[in-house]
C-alpha cells in the first residue's frame, strides 16, 4: 500500500512540478503574469471544464465514460435561455435545468446499466441527442438580458479577490468529491468497481446503482456548468459548449485517471485543470498561435500516457533483471 501510494503520488508530484515550471515560464515571460487580474482570467478560462472534469473523473475511475457532457452544457444553456425568454424567473429556471441535467444523466445511466450498453457508444449517441434537443428547444436565436446579479456571478470576481465567482462552485465541489472519493466508503466502492466490477458485485457493492448515480451526477454537474457558462456569457445559445468534451477528457486523463478505470485522484484532476489553464494562459500571453496550442494539448494527452507506460516498462525490466516479484500493472492504492 505504501509503495502504491508512493507511486500514485509520483504522478501528482510530476504534475505539480510541470505546473511550477509553467508558472516560472509565465512569470519570466510577462510582468503581468502573477497579477490578480491575470490569475482571475486564467482561472475563469477553464473553470467550467474543471467543474465538469470532477464527476467525469469518478465515472472513468468506475470504468465508464461520458462523452455527452458538452452537449448537456448546450442543452442546459438553451433550456435556461428558453425558460428565461418565456418569462420563467431564474430561481425556477435554474432548478429545472439542473433536473433536466439529472434526467439526461439518468438516460445515459439507464442505457449503460439497465441495457448493458457500452458507455462509449451510448454517450456518443446522447452527445448528438442532447445537442439536437438544445437546437430544437432554443432554435437559432440567442437569448440575453439576464439579470445583472446573474451575469456578475458568471463573470465577476469575489470583491477584493482575484477569485472568479464560479471558482466558489468549483472549490467546494472539488473538496466534496475529493473527500467522497478518497475518504468515504463510497469512494472505496468506486475504486473497487473500476478495478474489478465483478468482484465488487459479489461483495455486495451495488455496481449498477453506483454507476447510475455517477451518470446522474455527471449530467447534473454538466447542466450546472451550462448555467455558469450562460452567466459568464450573459446569453444563452444552443451551440454553447461544442468541443468541450475533448478538453474535459484531457483534464481527467492528464490528472492521472486511468481510462480503463480503477485509478486516479481528485487532486490529480485539479492539478491537471490548473496546469492546462496556466499552459493556455502562458501560450496566449506569449502570443503562440492557436494551432500550436491545439497540438500542444493533444501531445500532452498522449505523452501523459506514454511516459508512465514507458516508465512502467523500464521498471518491469529493472525488476526482471533484479529478479524481484512482479506486481500487476495497475497496482495502486485506494487513496
Amino acid at each position, binding site marked *: 500500500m505504501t509503495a502504491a501510494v508512493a507511486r500514485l503520488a509520483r504522478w501528482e508530484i510530476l504534475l505539480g512540478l510541470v505546473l511550477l515550471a509553467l508558472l516560472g515560464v509565465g512569470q519570466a515571460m510577462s510582468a503581468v503574469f502573477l497579477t490578480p487580474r491575470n490569475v482571475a482570467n486564467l482561472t475563469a478560462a477553464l473553470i467550467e471544464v474543471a467543474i465538469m472534469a470532477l464527476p467525469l473523473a469518478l465515472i472513468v475511475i468506475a470504468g465508464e465514460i461520458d462523452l455527452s457532457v458538452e452537449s448537456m452544457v448546450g442543452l442546459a444553456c438553451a433550456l435556461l435561455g428558453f425558460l428565461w425568454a418565456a418569462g420563467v424567473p431564474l430561481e425556477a429556471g435554474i432548478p429545472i435545468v439542473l433536473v433536466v441535467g439529472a434526467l439526461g444523466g439518468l438516460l445515459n445511466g439507464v442505457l449503460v446499466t439497465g441495457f448493458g450498453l457500452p458507455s462509449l*457508444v451510448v454517450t*456518443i449517441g446522447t452527445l*448528438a*441527442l442532447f445537442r*439536437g434537443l438544445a437546437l*430544437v428547444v432554443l432554435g437559432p436565436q440567442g437569448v440575453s438580458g439576464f439579470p445583472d446579479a446573474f451575469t456578475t456571478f458568471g463573470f465577476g470576481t469575489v470583491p477584493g479577490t482575484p477569485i472568479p465567482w464560479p471558482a466558489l462552485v468549483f472549490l467546494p465541489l472539488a473538496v466534496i468529491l475529493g473527500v467522497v472519493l478518497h475518504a468515504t466508503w463510497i469512494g472505496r466502492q468506486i475504486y473497487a468497481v473500476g478495478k474489478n466490477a465483478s468482484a465488487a458485485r459479489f461483495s455486495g457493492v451495488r455496481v449498477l446503482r453506483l454507476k447510475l448515480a455517477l451518470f446522474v451526477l455527471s449530467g447534473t454537474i454538466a447542466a450546472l456548468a451550462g448555467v455558469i457558462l450562460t452567466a459568464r456569457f450573459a446569453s444563452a445559445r444552443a451551440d454553447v459548449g461544442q468541443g468541450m468534451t475533448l478538453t474535459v477528457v484531457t483534464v481527467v486523463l492528464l490528472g492521472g485517471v486511468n481510462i*480503463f478505470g480503477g485509478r486516479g485522484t481528485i487532486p490529480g484532476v485539479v492539478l491537471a485543470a490548473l496546469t492546462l489553464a496556466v499552459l493556455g494562459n502562458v501560450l496566449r500571453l506569449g502570443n503562440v498561435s492557436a*494551432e*500550436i496550442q491545439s497540438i500542444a494539448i493533444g501531445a500532452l494527452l*498522449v505523452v501523459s500516457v506514454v511516459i508512465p507506460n514507458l516508465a512502467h516498462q523500464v521498471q518491469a525490466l529493472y525488476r526482471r533483471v533484479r529478479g524481484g516479484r512482479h506486481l500487476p500493472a495497475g497496482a495502486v492504492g485506494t487513496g
Partner: protein
Amino acid sequence: MAEPAVLERPTGWAGRVITLAARQRELTLAGLIVVLAALVALQAPQLLSSSNLAQVTAQASIIGIAAVGQTLVILTRNVDLSVESTIGLVAFVVAEVLAQRMLEPAAAIAFGVGLGLVLGVANGVLVALLNVPSIVATLGTLSIYRGIDFLLAGGKQVTLTDLPPGYTDAARATVVGIPLFFLVAVAIIAAFAVILRQTTFGRQLYAVGSNPEAAAILGIRSRLIVFVAFALCGMLAGVAGVLWGIEFGTINATAATGVVLQVVAACVVGGVNIFGGSGTVVGAGLGALFLGFISNALILLRLSQFWLQAIYGIVILVAVSIDALVTRRLARSTTVRRSFVGAAAAGRARR
C-alpha cells in the same frame, strides 16, 4: 451440401427469426433503406431524382469508406477518433498540392492516400507499440492532426478555381449511370469484405477482437494486427479525404470537423460491435447510406435541420439497444442445456 449427422440445434420459431434477423443484419438494413426511401419519396419525389441520388450516394460513399477503416479498428476492440482530422488534413494537403500545381492529379491522389496511411501508422505506433489506449491516443491525434492542418493552411482555403480544371468533375461523374464515388466505395467495401472474409489476416482481425487471450494462445500477433488495422484505417481516411476534396471543392483547415460522429454512427448502425469481434464492412457501408438518406430526407421533407442532430442520436441509441437485445436473446435461445447423461466414470468399474 447434405450433412445428415450435423444438424442445427432446435431453437424454436422465435429464436430462428431472431437469429436470421441478426445474421442478416445487412439485408435488414438494406430493406430499411428501401422502405425509408419509398416512404420519403411519397412526400418528396425528388429524393429519387438521379441528381439527388448522386449527391446522397457521393456523401454517403465518403463516410462509408471512412467507416470501413473504422470497422477494421473497432473489430480489434479499438477505436480511431482521429479519422476526421485525417480526412481534413488529407483533403487540404491534396487540394493545396494541386492548387500549387506541384503534382499531377493522379500523383496528388496517391500522395493523399499515402499521407493518410502515414497518419494511421502513427496511431498504430501509439496504440500497438506504446500501449496507449486507443481512445486516448486518437483523441490526442485528433487535435494534433487538426493542429497541423491549421498550421499548414493558416487562413488559406483552396477553392474550385484553384484546382486543375475538371478535377472536381469526378464528383458528378458516372459510369454507366452509376456515380463514380459510389462505385469507388462499393469497390473498397467489396475488397475489404473479401479481405476480412477470405484472408487469414481478416480472420485474425476478428479473432483478436473476439478473444484476445485465445488469440495469444493461438500465437496470433495481436499487436501487428492492431497496427495494420490502424494503418489501413488511416489509409482509407486518406481516400475519404481525397474524395472529400473532390466533392466539396472548397477546402480549408476545418474540413470534416465532427465527421467522426457520423463515421462511428455508421459502424454502430451497421451492426459493428463496439466491443470488437463482430460486424462487417458491408454493414458499415449500409449504415453510412442509411444515415445519408435520413439527413437527405430531413432536408427534402423541409423538416427543421435542428432535428437532424437529435435524430442522429436517437438512431445510434436505438441501433445499439436493438443490437444488445438481439444478442441477449440470441445467447439465451442457443444456450440449450446439453444433456449430461453420465460421465466417463459412470458405469465403468473402478479397480
